[in-house]
């Protein structure tokens, strides 16, 4: 038994301070990304969510150039990008992805410029890789309190906006008819998402920020149509995937090619993809069974609500969520 566990958890995993910080920060960021991600997916804003990750990296490069704290660079650039998107009309479904794309393009261009200056002035040619790909295992423990505090702020905003957000995710008209300030809600959510993704990008890299925002949320929304349950499940899936990914990356020093660990971002993304695919396969299997049963049963049982089949109710049943 002991021999088995020492292969699953290679020696020193829980003693290493690097791992402890990675588990803590990764867990916090994953949980918040999961909650925010459910709304990002429901509102069809995955692209914007991804864009913040890439754009905030430009802020990181800029902060490196100016010698200020990278946290301010990431957060500031991301919030500016959210403001730009809101200003040029990201809230309209039509033309939204072009508006997002143009802001992303401008942000990436800025990133190219800043990284170029970093390369020529500071001769740090590896900056591009570390900014974009990041690594959980290189977080300095001094940034942990600031990251956790900002993350808690973003989470509080989303929880405060919970009901108006849900209503406007179902449909702007419905929300407006119930007295929700749709425009303000959308703008504040965009800012909260920008902050969340920026925090994720600085701690775990741009790739993982997108993976943790979209992956667990999409998986959770495959499992349940109740938004509250989905948000909680997404947070749980994100945290589990992050921790399992950290464990795998730590263990991978003993995998081929020997003495060379696999990137933690690869391990976490692999776990996220596999969980998404497993849930998807299970769901389509369940739906097939359900429709087979409904076909053989009489009218009354067929009409009875099935947990896997989306019902078209109010904001509590988001099965028929808006398609863009």
């Amino acid at each position, binding site marked *: 038994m002991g021999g088995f566990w020492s292969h699953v958890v290679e020696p020193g995993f829980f003693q290493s301070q690097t791992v402890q910080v990675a588990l803590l920060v990764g867990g916090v960021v994953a949980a918040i990304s999961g909650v925010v991600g459910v709304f990002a997916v429901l509102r069809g804003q995955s692209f914007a969510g991804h864009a913040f990750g890439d754009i905030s990296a430009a802020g990181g490069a800029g902060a490196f150039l100016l010698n200020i704290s990278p946290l301010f660079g990431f957060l500031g650039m991301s919030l500016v990008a959210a403001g730009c998107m809101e200003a040029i009309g990201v809230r309209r479904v039509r033309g939204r992805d072009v508006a997002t794309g143009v802001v*992303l393009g401008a942000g990436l261009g800025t990133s*190219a410029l800043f*990284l170029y200056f970093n390369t020529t002035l500071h001769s740090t040619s590896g900056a*591009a890789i570390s900014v974009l790909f990041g690594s959980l295992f290189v977080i300095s423990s001094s940034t942990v309190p600031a990251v956790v505090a900002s993350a808690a702020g973003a989470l509080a905003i989303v929880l405060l906006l919970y009901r108006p957000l849900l209503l406007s995710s179902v449909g702007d008209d419905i929300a407006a008819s119930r007295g929700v300030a749709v425009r303000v809600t959308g703008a504040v959510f965009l800012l909260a998402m920008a902050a969340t993704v920026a925090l994720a990008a600085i701690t775990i890299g741009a790739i993982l920020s997108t993976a943790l925002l979209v992956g667990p949320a999409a998986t959770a929304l495959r499992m349940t149509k109740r938004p509250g349950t989905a948000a909680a499940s997404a947070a749980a899936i994100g945290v589990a995937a992050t921790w399992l990914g950290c464990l795998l990356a730590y263990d991978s020093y003993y995998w081929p090619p020997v003495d060379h660990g696999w990137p933690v971002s690869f391990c976490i993304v692999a776990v996220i993809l596999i969980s998404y695919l497993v849930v998807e396969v299970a769901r389509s299997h369940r739906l097939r069974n359900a429709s087979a049963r409904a076909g053989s049963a009489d009218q009354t049982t067929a009409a009875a609500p099935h947990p896997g089949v989306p019902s078209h109710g109010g904001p509590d049943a988001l099965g028929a969520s808006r398609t863009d």
Partner: protein
Amino acid sequence: MFTGFMVNAWLVATVVAVVAGVVGFFVVLRGSSFAAHAVPNAAFAGAAGANLIGASSVGGLLVFAIAGALGISLLSRRGRRDVATALAMVVMLALGALFLSFSTQYASETYSLLFGEVLGVSSSELLPTAVLAVVAVAAVVLLWRLLLLTSIDPELADARGVRASHVELAFLVIVAVVTSMSVPVVGALLIFSLMIGPPAAARSFAADPSVAVLLAVCFSLATIWSAIAVSYLTTLPIGFFVGALGAAFYLAGRAHAVWSGKRVGSSGVRASRVVTAFDDQGARR
């Protein structure tokens, strides 16, 4: 500026701009900006992988770009398109991170793959670029009507028995081809900027699809030519100028649309009118 190795750069950039303008018009029309961003990112992972096993980098770009397009298409059969795109992209990028971690001395090459390296165009890249460009433009011309129909009126396309998912897959493969030829010049992160900013501006200025495509080509040529010239003179990265000029064109298009009292996105109206002339159902919104 117009001698020696720069001749190659001008030639390749011109070809890239023409193709990006043509394909970009449909990227904007179909709302595929995220895919146009995701596919080059996937291709970047392919370049890293090709470098690892010592294969040709254009081959790696092409294989991974097409794999990314297939991944997006497969995943979006069972869910929202933007979620599928995000998932496919992060998986490919994670593979890229894995490949990069296995190879050593790759940092500067990574930078030029991400942000473009106009001085890095060799004569041996001219032929593959030209071939891929001809393939991409020919595919767009062949699929012209289907692409327009499925973009502007999906319901009518459906009623006529057009499989929208097949058209979308074909279109994503075209984007993948454009990506593979463009990444070595403008970089994985900025090719999508070229495919969005200039064509979006073109749509604001012209209602007719053919005119808009021609205009998009002109705008993207203007973008990339000035980007190369300024990049050559200042030694600043070309990607910065492509991104900035793309955004400038977009804003100019928006300003024009506001000034002339049109709603942005209404430039598909004329094409839409052509299509809806056949549609007497009145079921459209």
